[in-house]
């Protein structure tokens, strides 16, 4: 069972919800939390667990071997990303432009562009009781988050069974990294705030998950600030509001220290319990279907 926590707008509380929810669920059953916001991963700041595994993550890029190369220029011709250039008697590869499609490499008549590994980030796996935490971080200067997100999801899939609850803390926005982080999810929780910015970006996020045909619901964070336009929108569009978390300076202060909220703040605990029950419900429905 995969739950993606997403939001159009940044800073609405994705990480807060992901870390608190995963920790709460792990009090009773095995749970995996995976931070897919590989550009700016923050979940790890709130999770106290032991590092059990670490691995470098690579993307594949071509490397020119000049010995056999006949300088036919086919590599340049087949690259749609201008990442391979023939310059005089040289073939130049621009790794930051390369999408790793293998076309230049596999279509080279002399095998002169074998694919080689290039480190793009690091994956770390932590454990604390029932809670497993997987985090990947993109190297600064690497522009493409998608390959690392893909590999992180694959790592989670390979190491944890179908029956485990998996929570994915997704990147903000509506472009390719979010799509990659949410496309396999069984359910998406969109975290928003009741402000004009929150509503505007929620609408974009709703369009995105609708296009992917994934069931979803909304959690309103900082409830009480701003106005009621998000609630009205959800009502009109028949979107489930799973829970609300009140606007409270104490929450912001506790968060600022890198602490989990639900152990000390009753309103957050209440929200986390209702979300967790909601998820358990979906999970048992899903298990019913597969049986």
């Amino acid at each position, binding site marked *: 069972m995969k739950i993606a926590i997403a939001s159009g707008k*940044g*800073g609405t509380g994705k990480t807060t919800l992901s870390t608190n929810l995963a920790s709460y669920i792990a009090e009773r059953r095995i749970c995996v939390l995976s931070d897919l916001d590989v550009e*700016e991963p923050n979940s790890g700041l709130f999770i106290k667990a032991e590092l059990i595994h670490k691995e470098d993550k690579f993307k594949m890029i071509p490397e020119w071997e000049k010995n056999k190369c006949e300088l036919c220029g086919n590599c340049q011709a087949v690259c749609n990303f201008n990442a391979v250039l023939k310059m005089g008697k040289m073939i130049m590869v621009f790794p930051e432009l390369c999408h790793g*499609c*293998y076309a230049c490499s596999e279509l080279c008549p002399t095998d002169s562009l074998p694919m080689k590994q290039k480190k793009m980030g690091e994956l770390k796996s932590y454990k604390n009781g029932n809670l497993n935490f997987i985090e990947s971080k993109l190297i600064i200067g690497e522009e493409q988050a998608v390959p690392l997100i893909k590999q992180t999801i694959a790592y989670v899939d390979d190491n944890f069974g179908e029956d485990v609850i998996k929570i994915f803390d997704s990147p903000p926005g509506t*472009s390719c990294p979010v799509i990659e982080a949410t496309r396999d999810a069984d359910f998406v929780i969109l975290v928003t705030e009741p402000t004009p910015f929150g509503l505007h970006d929620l609408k974009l996020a709703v369009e995105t998950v609708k296009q*992917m045909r994934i069931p979803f619901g909304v959690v309103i964070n900082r409830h009480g600030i701003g106005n009621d336009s998000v609630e009205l929108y959800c009502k009109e569009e028949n979107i489930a509001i799973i829970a609300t978390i009140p606007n409270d300076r104490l929450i912001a202060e506790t968060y*600022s*220290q890198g602490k989990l909220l639900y152990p000390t703040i009753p309103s957050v605990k209440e929200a986390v319990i209702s979300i967790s029950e909601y998820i358990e419900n979906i999970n048992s429905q899903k298990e019913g279907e597969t049986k």
Partner: protein
Amino acid sequence: MKEIVVISGKGGTGKTSITASLAYLGGEDLIIADCDVDAADMHLLMAPDFGQSEDFYSGEIAYIDQDACIKCGKCQDVCRFDAIPVIDTQYVVDPLGCEGCGYCARVCPTDAITNSQPKVGEVYVSNVRTGTTMIHARLSIGADNSGKLVAKVKNEAKTLAEKENKIAVLVDGSPGVGCPVVSSLSGASFVILVTEPTVSGLHDLKRVYELVKKFGIKAGCIINKADLNEAVADDVKKFLKEEDIVLLSEIPYNVKFTEAMTNGKTIVEYDEDLGKKISESWTKITDIVGIEI
């Protein structure tokens, strides 16, 4: 002509609210560029007229002609992005997964696959209520190439600023450290980092500053919600000092930020005390950049 770029690493620090305030203060001397194309919100505070709009096409996307397809599966074999699933016995392209590398079309024995350039968004040139022009965009859902759209918005803004003899382009950048941010930063004269004194805010500030450093751009920092956590605020200031980043101002945690936004106003129009803090930052910024507005 100068280019001032506002970024934050972490979302929700108040980047757009502060950028809109600076836009208000700079008035008609600036051209505004909203490069946070993923979740563009500047327009909610600037009252744009969406005067001109243009579709933006970029990259490629594959399409399989079912009549010509002999179902050999070669396209699926070579696709590294798992973007050619078989649905109802037909090989089809998943537009959200396709990266547009064109490899499938090159190996198809019957030339059943064609590539077309997808629309990735719309670019707008708008008159805004601060008496100037804003270039902004809307990225199509799930579109690739947001970096290219960011570059398009920025280049349009620069061209216009030069043509109209404006003093600077003010850019609302995107969150994160990936391709849209890299596009936002290229060519900047000065970077404003908006952060908050939370462990996440500091963590993301450090990461995004690593990127800024690679570009060798001078930076200043606005600490928003500065009184939320004194200890972390001290850590932020220590980091700024070590890295020689100018502390532009410390703005206290205040719900008036949200109230102003809810009323479609910038904070400088809405609250005198908070407005003063931002005006002070603006004076420092214009001094450092060497412009008179």
